[in-house]
């Protein structure tokens, strides 16, 4: 080890220039350029968002009024005036019914995945298939309900649309609820089991309440998405011009009305489309914001 003292000195210059300007220009430029590209990417995404919100708000606000929200839809697209009352009613009824069907099924399914199946083959299959089902296009779900329900009962109806939307919501709810159940600490389950509670009792009285805010938040997002779905409604709900607050018989939704009116060349129809779009956006945003509030306000303390 005595040789160490005679080793040559390191090659780095002394004293070194440590300033940013001493960094080769090429490296500085690449670094700066890549950072600005990332910023630009963000801008590219946010500009359309801003424009959509701006256009929907400014064109919609001119149309929208209390009357617009409750009046019947004119049965000729070129007629001026009228409102979106039936579509508002249909959106509420259909989305509500879809939620009523999909929520219990989805939550129970998520309980199976997280509390019973865990990593067994069936649970893994269901998990993968839920992911796949999330990717099934909404128009396909509409066709499916048409083929398997509308053709059987021989009637287009709000209920058929609710079935289709429910099928679309189901996998979303299963996966988001499972995620929330997984956050519930095992100690809670063990504590409950140690008190002699049965598995189902533990799940219903301890695990679910602990995860409820997260589950509700996920459900709200699913509802928001379903309310904006168009294709299945167009395929299976038929159409109406007067409000139909029941699940039986033909119905329509805001989304379906936007679609129908947007394609019309008449200004009156286009105006109704903008008004319906603003109404729909407000509904969707309310649910989205509520979901965020619930999840941040009542979040399970992670860890």
């Amino acid at each position, binding site marked *: 080890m005595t040789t160490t003292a005679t080793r040559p000195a390191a090659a780095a210059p002394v004293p070194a220039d440590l300033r940013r300007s001493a960094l080769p220009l090429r490296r500085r430029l690449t670094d700066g350029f890549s950072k600005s590209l990332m910023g630009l990417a963000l801008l590219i995404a946010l500009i359309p968002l801003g424009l959509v919100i701006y256009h929907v708000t400014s064109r919609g606000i001119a149309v929208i009024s209390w009357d617009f929200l409750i009046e019947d839809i004119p049965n000729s697209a070129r007629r001026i005036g009228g409102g979106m009352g039936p579509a508002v009613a249909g959106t509420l009824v259909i989305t509500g019914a879809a939620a009523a069907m999909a929520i219990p099924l989805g939550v129970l399914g998520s309980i199976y995945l997280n509390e019973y199946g865990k990593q067994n083959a069936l649970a893994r299959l269901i998990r993968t298939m839920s992911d796949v089902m999330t990717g099934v296009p909404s*128009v396909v779900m509409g066709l499916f309900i048409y083929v398997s329900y509308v053709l059987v009962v021989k009637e287009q109806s709000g209920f058929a649309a609710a079935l289709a939307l429910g099928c679309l919501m189901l996998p979303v709810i299963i996966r988001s609820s499972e995620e929330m159940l997984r956050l519930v600490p095992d100690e809670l389950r063990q504590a409950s089991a140690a008190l002699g509670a049965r598995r189902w009792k533990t799940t219903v009285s301890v695990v679910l309440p602990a995860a409820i805010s997260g589950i509700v938040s996920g459900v709200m997002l699913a509802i928001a998405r379903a309310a904006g779905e168009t294709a299945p409604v167009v395929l299976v709900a038929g159409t109406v011009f007067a409000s139909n607050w029941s699940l039986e018989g033909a119905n329509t939704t805001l989304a379906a009305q936007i679609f129908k009116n947007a394609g019309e060349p008449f200004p009156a129809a286009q105006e109704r489309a903008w008004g319906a779009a603003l109404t729909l956006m407000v509904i969707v945003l309310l649910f989205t914001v509520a979901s965020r509030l619930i999840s941040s306000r009542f979040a399970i303390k992670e860890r």
Partner: protein
Amino acid sequence: MTVLDKSAQLTRKDRGRHADRLFWALCVSAGFAVLVILALILVTMVKQAYPAFSAEFFTSSTWIPNDPDGDGPAKPVYGTLAFLYGTLVVSAIAVIVAVPVSVGIALFLTELAPRRIRTAIVTLIDLLAAVPSVVFGLWGILVVAPAMVPVYQWIHDVLGGVPLLGSLFGEPRSSGRSFMTAGLILAIMIVPIITSIAREVFATVPDSDKQAAWALGATRWEMIKGAVLPHSFGGVVGAVILGLGRAMGETIAVALVIGSSVQITANLFESGYALPAIIVDQWGESTGVFTAALIGMGVVLFVITVLVNLVARFVVRRAEIRMRGAAA
């Protein structure tokens, strides 16, 4: 009866066990619902679409669903190639535009933005995801399409003469409703999904790798290039495939802005058609084999999107496993 006490005990116990069983059965059937629905989709739709499946369904680009002028001998022709073509072109445009943007945003969020800005941006991107597709469609048909015409015209004027590019950027439609417009609108719609998966992927890059790059005097970009991107390639590919699946199935926005012309053309500024779009557009007018043909296209769409989704999940999972192997 001397055993009454004992049996009562037993019954109560049994009832408890029954409740447990019942609850379990409820949960399992709920889980099964997913499998049942998927299976039913395939079976019922294939059965219904069966009359429409023929060689020309898959090979012809001619679409004459009804006797066009009501007098001729014209036999209906259900060739779906033009719709398949439109779907592929539009999805390709969407992915090409959306991927760099999404990866850029994801990198910005994970590697560049301070935490406070990060939450705000994530909220905005979530907001973008929350806008219903029909609203994008409305905006696309009434605002974007007309506004893009001069842009398309300019691009055509500049690049129209170039041999290969010229055929892509031909004379634009005066309505602006075209493959390109549909692709751009779709791109906006799939940015949030690709961004959120890419973000998750980037977040799993081990900190030790980043530190190693920093300690060698890497700039931020060099650190990203050397430590973040190599680790995330598989995951990002998965994200892109998922985005592609979403783009191919998207119906309403495309139906509104693609222009509804049954044609196969290289000109991206021309109007065209897509599989989901034709289904919603002509649903109301269809009967018999015509309806079967539309359902048949639904089956095609279903099979494609399921395959794409499975492939994407497989790619992402394999990338995850490789990462875990590397970290161990």
